[in-house]
């Protein structure tokens, strides 16, 4: 006789009912190091043992950049519409609702203004958890308005990118967000206001091919994947394995597309130093 008897046959939990592993006390880095989450937080979400930069979102970046975590959010309630009535395995509005429920975010970007070491700034920061940080109308519009806020108030604009690229469920509209954000950046540039683009893991597709690459300063976090096409697509196109470190921050620095790589723990002080020099 077995030790345990299954009373109900074929118990199955539908995917929706499965719970995500709750945020525990410990974080395990990809190299297997285990760290207490409070220690991680105090260390700007960088693992002290191996310098691994844990993926974080707008909440954490705002905390890191703004003095005393004080900031005013812009367009906090803007949400995606469904102009195409798009449906794949589920309708787009349902996908949005699900993602909002899971992440407690409205969409894949948040914009805020406040002070960083007493320098007034506008920051737009992407959230990868929200449909892969994909860029639809909301992302484009919020970034465009963030840039406009910088133009109107003559304060530097900081963009933190973290995205898989375009949002297919908004097809043509999504594509035009590349144009919209670039148009606003052209105006920002004419006003001679600094634009710092921070590329974090991962930044690919239409996001890289528009605002993420247009900084007066392009800065990357260490070890981030940054590229136009995804590695799988490139591998299939050329039919060869990709060299080690291909499309990493270090690779982009080597090829001249990044001004410097920054450890997240020095992010705030280095950005402040740079902006103070431009004053």
């Amino acid at each position: 006789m077995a030790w345990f008897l299954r009373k109900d046959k074929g118990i199955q939990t539908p995917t929706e009912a499965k719970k995500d592993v709750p945020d525990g006390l410990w974080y395990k880095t990809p190299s297997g190091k285990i760290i207490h989450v409070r220690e991680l937080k105090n260390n700007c979400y960088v693992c002290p043992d191996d310098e691994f930069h844990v993926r974080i979102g707008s909440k954490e970046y705002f905390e890191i950049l703004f003095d005393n975590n004080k900031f005013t959010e812009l367009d906090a309630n803007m949400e995606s519409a469904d102009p195409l009535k798009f449906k794949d395995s589920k309708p787009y509005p349902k996908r949005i609702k699900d993602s909002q429920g899971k992440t407690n975010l409205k969409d894949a970007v948040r914009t805020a203004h406040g002070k960083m070491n007493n320098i007034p700034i506008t920051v737009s920061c992407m959230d990868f958890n929200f449909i892969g940080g994909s860029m639809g109308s909301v992302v484009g519009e919020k970034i465009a308005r963030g840039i406009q806020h910088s133009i109107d108030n003559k304060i530097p604009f900081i963009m933190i990118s973290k995205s898989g690229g375009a949002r297919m469920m908004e097809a043509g509209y999504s594509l035009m967000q590349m144009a919209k954000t670039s148009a606003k950046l052209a105006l920002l540039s004419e006003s001679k206001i600094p634009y710092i683009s921070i590329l974090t893991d991962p930044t690919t597709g239409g996001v890289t091919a528009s605002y993420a690459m247009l900084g007066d300063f392009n800065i990357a976090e260490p070890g981030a994947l940054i590229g136009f096409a995804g590695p799988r697509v490139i591998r299939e196109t050329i039919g060869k394995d990709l060299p080690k470190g291909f499309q990493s921050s270090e690779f982009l620095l080597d090829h001249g597309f990044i001004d410097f790589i920054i450890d997240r723990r020095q992010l705030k002080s280095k950005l402040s130093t740079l902006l103070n020099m431009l004053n």
Partner: protein
Amino acid sequence: MLLDFEKPIYELEHKLSDMKQLASNSGVDVSNAVKSLEEKIDKLKKDTFSNLTRWQRVQLSRHPERPYTLDYIYEITEDFVELHGDRNISDDKAMVGGFGTIDGQTFMIVGQQKGRNTKQRQLRNFGMANPEGYRKALRLFRLAEKFNKPIVTFIDTPGAFPGLEAEERGQAEAIAKNLKEMFMIKVPIICIVIGEGASGGAIGIGIGDRVFMLENTWYSVISPENCSAILWRSWDYKEQAAEAMKVTAKDMKAFGLVDDIINEPLGGAHKDLKWMSNQMKKVIVKTTKDLQKLPIEELINQRIEKFCNMGVVKE
């Protein structure tokens, strides 16, 4: 080559020529039969091509006989001087451009170029430009600005090339820079999607005061096949993906994402290159005249304003 939906038409046309052949050989009068068959063919053509699905239009946009950028350039211009190279790395054969005259007025014309046979397709990299292509385009736009000549771009690409060297040389940066710089170019810009308008590779030369699409073209953020592969995890849902993304000229105009549609001859642009080119020429000449009436600062403001209004959000 025949697309699936062209086959019934082809069969009837075949029958018609057989009938004519037979009549001329035997001397029997079949004029009534010929006439009725011709009418039938005409009706079938109209029915077929006015009711194409979105995927069928995508297929037409890739028809192997479809005219490419240089075909139109040679039809439309009286003189054309092709210019090469990005002055840095190389000359990208997938992106062509140069000064050309249309009705005596000089234009800078730039566009992606596909190849017609295997050798040409390789040379043109299937119309997929590398970063050099986008930088060459920008160099030519600046040249146009310097000599105050209006710009026309022809968009026809399955995407910017996703290769190893393309990444090394900054494909994303090259496209991003074009987007930003094209907004500030101080001459009128007209963009026309003549075939495929795939994603960043297309919009990389697609910022214009007026953007047109030929009737049987598509323009979107990803090809229906790749959308199918990502969202449906299979290549088999391309028809559904084309429907869901609403990629045709009619869709894009209805959304206000392009300005207007240029009609094609019945059966597609390749059925009558001369007619098609003439249509495009008329549109280019008239649109340029309209755009040149505005002071350039005003034109640039409107260009920026237009793209900034694109998008639908809830607040």
